């Protein structure tokens, strides 16, 4: 295949048949065209922003924010404050490639892998995505439940809220509307920064924590495990599927790559800042020995924060968890729906009506329903599911990453927008790092479980 970047037709050519999906996308593209033509730089940025910010802030999900806060509560700021921006820089490298491939080929990740590398890899990637997505979605509903528990609201309210949001965002029949609603919600990820301010951290300690230092009291084994789980909280298979498919659905083209980069970079910066906010809020509990908020057992995290830093900090952190879970549910369900439509070879766009994209809408809502039903099962092993979500995502991530690098460096597909040698070297390094972390984490957990090494 070769991608022709020229406009759709010469004036004398026969006008193409436009579907409803084409017409909706055309409306968005006309606005981009007008903004570019009149040199309205800020309007252009506003119109082209979206997939990058959503992928990055979507990954600042419930389990990730609790993980950052727990890291702060157990280890303080020193190791993690510099690590979080470094990991989001790593996420930027892979997400920029996804955006670029989506903008140049106008196709989603699942469709391209399936068509370019065969059905086995296509379905393998989709199965990997569905598995990790369902597990992560359960974790997101748990995060909403944890946040709402602070306000004495239970699981049923959490499920109703999550499902209502998915149904509401799907009701518009336009990608633009879906994106703007989710973007508006995603900005409330900044609540974690507010929580950090409310705990009144020592500014000098925060600034000095940017000087990298080893993990206090951590062995190499602990460090590797910690790295693996944190990498799993920063780059995931759903982000890859989501950003490439959303960039194509938005109608981005090769001309928009520069703005797509800005969008992705802005998302990475915001996600890193808000992640550090959660870490600082959690570090307020350091002097209180973490107050028993190990991992996701931190159902009482907002409550612990209230005791240490006041009602405001607890409430803001709880609301932040609700937001983080809600936005992740919307973006992860979207990535599942894109993958389902792409692998089935059927319509997969928010710009298509539910009648024309039944599989896409059914997968979107179905994924949320399935995950929601799990958290309503009495005695379901939620803690174990949540703890293993990031492990599984990290272990399966190299498959998606390898194909991102292969697609982005495919000259036949990407033409002049293919990866440079430097970009390939960085991409391969990222794949190797993630593969090593995932393998170490998976093998170590297995060996400990089978008592082949000491616990």
């Amino acid at each position, binding site marked *: *295949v070769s*991608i*022709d*970047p*020229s*406009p*759709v*037709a010469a*004036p004398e050519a026969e*006008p*193409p*048949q*436009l*579907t409803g*999906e*084409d017409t909706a*996308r*055309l409306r968005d593209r*006309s606005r*981009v*065209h*007008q903004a570019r033509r009149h040199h309205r730089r800020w309007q252009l940025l506003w119109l082209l922003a979206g997939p990058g910010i959503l992928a990055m802030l979507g990954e600042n999900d419930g389990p990730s924010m609790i993980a950052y806060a727990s890291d702060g509560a157990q280890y303080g700021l020193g190791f993690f404050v510099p690590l979080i921006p470094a990991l989001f820089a790593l996420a930027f490298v892979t997400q920029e490639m996804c955006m670029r491939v989506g903008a140049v*080929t*106008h*196709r989603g990740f699942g*469709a*391209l892998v399936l*068509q*370019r*590398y065969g059905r086995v*890899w296509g379905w*393998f990637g989709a199965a990997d995505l569905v598995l990790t997505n369902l597990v992560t979605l359960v974790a997101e509903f748990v995060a909403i439940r944890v946040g709402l528990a602070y306000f004495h609201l239970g699981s049923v309210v959490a499920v109703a809220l999550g499902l209502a949001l998915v149904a509401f965002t799907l009701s518009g029949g336009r990608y633009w509307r879906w994106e703007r609603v989710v973007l508006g919600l995603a900005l409330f990820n900044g609540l974690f920064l507010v929580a950090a301010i409310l705990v009144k951290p020592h500014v000098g300690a925060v600034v000095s924590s940017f000087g990298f230092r080893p993990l206090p009291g951590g062995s190499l084994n602990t460090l590797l495990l910690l790295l693996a789980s944190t990498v799993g909280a920063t780059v995931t298979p759903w982000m890859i599927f989501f950003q490439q498919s959303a960039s*194509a659905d938005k*109608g981005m*083209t090769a001309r928009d790559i520069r703005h797509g980069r800005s969008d992705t970079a802005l998302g990475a910066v915001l996600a890193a800042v808000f992640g550090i906010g959660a870490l600082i809020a959690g570090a307020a509990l350091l002097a209180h020995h973490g107050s028993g908020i190990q991992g996701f057992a931190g159902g009482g995290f907002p409550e612990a924060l209230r005791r240490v830093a006041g009602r405001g900090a607890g409430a803001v952190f709880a609301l932040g968890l609700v937001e983080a879970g809600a936005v992740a549910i919307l973006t992860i369900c979207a990535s599942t729906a894109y993958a389902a439509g792409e692998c089935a*070879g059927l*319509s997969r766009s928010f710009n298509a009506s539910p009648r024309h994209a039944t599989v896409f809408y059914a997968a979107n809502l179905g994924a949320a329903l399935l995950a929601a039903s799990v958290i309503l099962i009495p005695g379901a*092993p939620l803690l*174990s599911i949540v*703890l*293993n979500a990031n*492990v*599984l995502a990290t*272990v*399966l991530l*190299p*498959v998606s990453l*390898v194909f991102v690098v*292969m697609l982005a460096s*495919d000259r036949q*597909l990407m033409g002049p927008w293919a990866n440079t040698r430097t970009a390939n070297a960085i991409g391969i390094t990222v794949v190797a790092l993630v*593969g090593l972390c*995932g*393998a170490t984490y*998976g*093998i170590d*957990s*297995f060996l400990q*479980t*089978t008592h082949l090494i000491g616990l």
Partner: protein
Amino acid sequence: MTANEEPFSHLEPGQLVAETSQPVSRAALRRRAVFGLWGLRVFVILVSLMVIYTFIDQLH
């Protein structure tokens, strides 16, 4: 938009549904790449089995 400007000219040909529903051609992979992908498949399945075993063990 000016009067003589066709509205569909703001879409690239590859963006139309009629075009994106056509599959792209299969990539011709070198033998080394095929081996690498098989290695990746074995690696991922092995490590995934370990994680699933750990998960099931944690349930008890």
